[in-house]
């Protein structure tokens, strides 16, 4: 099987392009990710360098967004913070997808008792208020970057598992799968070569929404002091730090809050547009 022909990608793009909000979101996300990757080159200052003689400086030519409570350059911290925030978001999403594909795949392929057990676990996880669970685990085990990723990833895989399982159940009876199985193609190969590509559109959508969920969750955990810990800057913990100075310099809370919101919004808008574009059932609208 080769990839989709160029023509069809162009066709999808043309459909996608009609959604102006999604195009804007994509442009913004492209910018943010480039900034995150190139952060060390772009950051005007060392994001951790304090200058106690220049605290709470207003925006100026030297500090475009001013400085924070310890005289650190806010722009530099936003830029470098993009790295950790997006890395946490992407890593947590990847983890969620991997867990989801594994469980969903096993569930769909094996069926029977295994399927029932895995699906009950999935239901169970949807039953627990996952945010509370995340908070609990971080409160007792300590919140560092790795734990935050693990916890967000481990509480965000359920949708993926269901999507993958549903897709497998839908695809399995089709002729080419039946034929492959008859020819003795292994389960793993079947999954990676035939079944997952079928689920790809839904997975892309789930992944996009997953990043939005992860970035938002990290910031919420940060509010409770359970996000990524200082000195590593993330948008979430910048917001937490700024929260203590919200009366003195509310703008310090506005910057990271705004980038978090824009990023999450863009991922949500993108996911929504992708589901419209990629899902044939929504074609032609």
């Amino acid at each position, binding site marked *: 099987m080769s990839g989709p022909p160029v023509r069809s990608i162009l066709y999808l793009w043309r459909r996608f392009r009609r959604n102006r909000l999604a195009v804007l979101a994509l442009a913004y996300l492209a910018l943010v990710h480039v900034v995150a990757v190139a952060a060390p080159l772009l950051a005007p200052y060392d994001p951790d360098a304090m200058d106690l003689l220049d605290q709470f400086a207003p925006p100026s030519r030297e500090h475009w967004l001013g400085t924070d409570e310890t005289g650190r350059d806010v722009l530099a911290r936003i830029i470098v913070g993009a790295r950790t925030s997006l890395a946490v978001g992407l890593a947590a999403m990847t983890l969620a997808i991997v867990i989801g594909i594994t469980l969903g795949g096993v569930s769909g392929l094996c069926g029977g008792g295994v399927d029932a057990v895995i699906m009950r676990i999935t*239901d169970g996880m949807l*039953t627990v208020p996952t*945010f509370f669970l995340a908070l609990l685990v971080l409160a007792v*085990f300590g919140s560092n970057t790795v734990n935050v990723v693990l916890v967000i990833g481990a509480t965000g895989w359920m949708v993926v598992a269901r999507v993958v399982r549903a897709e497998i159940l839908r695809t399995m009876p089709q002729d080419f799968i039946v034929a492959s199985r008859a020819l003795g193609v292994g389960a793993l190969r079947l999954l990676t070569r035939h079944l997952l590509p079928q689920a790809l559109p839904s997975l892309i959508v789930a992944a996009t929404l997953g990043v939005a969920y992860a970035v*938002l969750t990290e910031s919420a955990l940060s509010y*409770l002091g359970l996000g990524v810990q200082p000195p590593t800057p993330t948008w979430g913990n910048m917001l937490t730090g700024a929260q203590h100075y919200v009366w003195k310099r509310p703008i310090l809370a506005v910057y990271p*809050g705004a980038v*978090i*919101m824009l990023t999450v919004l863009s991922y949500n808008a993108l996911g929504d547009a992708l589901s419209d574009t990629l899902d044939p059932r929504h074609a032609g609208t």
Partner: protein
Amino acid sequence: MKTYVVRRIAQGLIVLFVVSAAIFVIVHSAPGGPALLNQPDMDPTVAKEMRQSLGLDDPIPVQYARWLRNALTGHFGKSYQHSIATADLMVARIPNTLLLSGTALVLAVLLALPLGTISAVYRYSWLDYLATVVAFAGVSIPVFWLGILMIILFSVTLGWLPSAGMVTIGTAFSVGDLLVHLVMPAVVLATFPLAQLTRYVRASMVDVLAQDYIRTARAKGLPEAALLGRHALRNALIPMLTVLGVLTPRLLGGAVITETIFAWPGLGRLAVDAAITRDYPVIMGVTLLVSAFVVVSNLVTDLLYGVVDPRITLQ
């Protein structure tokens, strides 16, 4: 139907058992231990005695078995931090959380229905775009950030609303006073479900409006309002019920944050405090209670599903 309910309840109980065991192990294997035993002024021998008398030196399975036995008889133990029964602590706060979450949910549904409908009816108009952007913003905004911005605006700058608490302390209770305190937390908590629901109402209205029977009704000259209200909305409600089921856990998660910002004396704040101070009995009690609540509400949602849409049979 009956067997369905029985089976669902059995499944729910299994879920609760697994959840409680998992949480118990997680919490008890954490480094540090309860804050109660880690007070800077505490005599180390006192700490050791307390540890022993709380049974924290026993192996974790033994402790869990003991907890489970007590929990089955309705005893959740005494809070380490509050020195009163966990059950009493929770009972005192359940109404507050229900009031807040309930108001938020009602607010969200009442606003989402017209907004989503308008969006769907005037698809691709500027109204639709506006509603779409607002809905996306609603699911994307960090809850606590919104809360802080609202406090700055409505309490400090404008002085319209109290910044925290449930009632004005020192005055006689009045419903008006309670409502004034409820406005901001409820709005903040409603934001996420409102945005989510608006999207779903729009989507399902778009689907429904494209159906043949709507076209037929319209062709017959049925007034637009009656058409939307009586036919379209009723059918659009069905998918919304599933969403409500999914939203309940998220709403309770949001309550954790909202109650902390607005000092609302509910279960969410109790949970945060318990997690931070490692108040084991309270952590266990709240987790179990909240999970049970979600299990039940999911069941109710599914049953309602059958009521709203007679085509669905539960098995």
